[in-house]
């Protein structure tokens, strides 16, 4: 919607009837504004305007604008459709069975809306003509503001204090703390060690005796055994060693495979 550039205190000059058709729609603040302007040109009290004539003028105006291929905002077209409907209701006598509002009621509604808009405009201009602050009436030019002097009362509880102390002592400790590295044998690691330990020995030797040096701590036992066993299976698959177990849960023996000898 275009904003009206016209100073609305200026009552627009009354144009001759034929001039009406040449007014640009852009000068209006919406369809109601246009209707109000058209109504004013009837030079009568809004209560006494001919709504039918008004509707016809509006429709003619919109028609002219559209013939000039000027883009008309949807608001104006909605109003045009409504006025066309109003016109038809006013011209055709109402049937008794008709539940729709009568043409007279619709016309009264339109008059009411026009009167209300005009009243609001008059109210706005009355408001602006009042002695306004900063225009006719003035406030204190040298205000003496209230000076606020702020003093802070600090609050802390003994708990806060102790928590702060304990917190930072603990912080100091954690900087020295180094997490215990759990030894985990990787498969590659276990395989390298087995290769190294078996060497060129073709004797059956139990796996545990190879690894006894590495089973020193109970914590490492499981990972050493698991990784070594898995690696030994891999070495068997590659045909590098033989593996033998005489009984269930018995010791696992291994030796360098003969065929593997260079």
């Amino acid at each position: 919607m275009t904003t009206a550039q016209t100073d609305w205190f200026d009552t627009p000059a009354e144009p001759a009837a034929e001039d009406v058709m040449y007014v640009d729609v852009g000068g209006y603040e919406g369809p109601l504004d246009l209707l109000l302007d058209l109504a004013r040109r009837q030079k009568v009290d809004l209560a006494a305007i001919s709504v039918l004539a008004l509707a016809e003028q509006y429709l003619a105006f919109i028609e002219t604008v559209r013939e000039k291929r000027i883009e008309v905002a949807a608001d104006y077209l909605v109003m045009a459709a409504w006025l066309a409907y109003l016109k038809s209701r006013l011209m055709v006598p109402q049937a008794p069975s008709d539940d729709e509002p009568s043409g007279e009621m619709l016309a009264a509604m339109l008059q009411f809306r026009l009167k209300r808009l005009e009243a609001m405009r008059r109210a706005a201009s009355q408001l602006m003509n009042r002695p306004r602050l900063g225009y006719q009436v003035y406030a204190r030019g040298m205000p003496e503001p209230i000076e606020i002097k702020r003093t802070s009362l600090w609050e802390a509880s003994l708990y806060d204090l102790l928590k702060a102390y304990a917190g930072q002592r603990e912080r100091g400790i954690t900087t020295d703390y180094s997490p215990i590295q759990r030894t985990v044998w990787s498969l590659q690691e276990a395989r390298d060690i087995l290769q190294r330990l078996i060497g060129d020995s073709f004797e059956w030797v139990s796996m545990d005796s190879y690894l006894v040096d590495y089973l020193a701590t109970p914590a490492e036992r499981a990972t050493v055994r698991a990784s070594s066993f898995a690696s030994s299976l891999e070495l068997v698959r590659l045909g590098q060693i033989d593996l033998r177990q005489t009984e269930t849960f018995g010791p696992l023996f291994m030796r360098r495979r003969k065929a593997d000898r260079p």
Partner: protein
Amino acid sequence: MSALSDDHSEIVERHLRVLEALLFASSEPLDANSLLTYLGEGANIGELLLTLQARYADRGVNLVRRGDRWAFRTAEDLGFLLRRDEQENRPLSRAALETLSIIAYHQPATRAEIEEVRGVATGKGTIDLLMEAGWIRMRGRRRTPGRPVTYGTTEAFLDHFGLETLSDLPGLDELKGSGLLSGRLPPNLQIPLPFDGAALRDDEDPLDPDDPGGDEDQD
């Protein structure tokens, strides 16, 4: 005159001096309650303010009431002397003026209601501009589908336009009498519009806590 009434008038004079000092010092209107905190219990603040108002009635500076607040302002008839040229007079757009007067006369009013009166969509910029000027505020939310925000005027609005209360709006009675303020009703149905102050109406809910300015509007 008895000693008692002497004492009394001495206290009244002291109170009046305090009120003068406070109201003179401030460029913003002050409300009676905060003034009372400077006087101590038992002071009849309402009567004191009226006394002060009467004293200044003929002076070049008058004590005026703006809603619940009071302020010294230069006398209206001397405005011609004081016109400040340096003031930047940015006239309000026609859309803003109309929107302001519709809110003033129809409050609490939703945006849809403003648009219904103007017959055209009201840009958000217009409402924002009036909010920024400090003349309108969000009052609450209408208890209808969509819970639209309702707008009303502020005390700064009263102050700017020199109104004591909303019922001082020019032509208000006439407009009410002709039914023009009664929303969507046909012209022959006249329903007087209640013009209460800041309190929410039956069909208004308070603003949501996260509405802008929702807190300031609780006072």
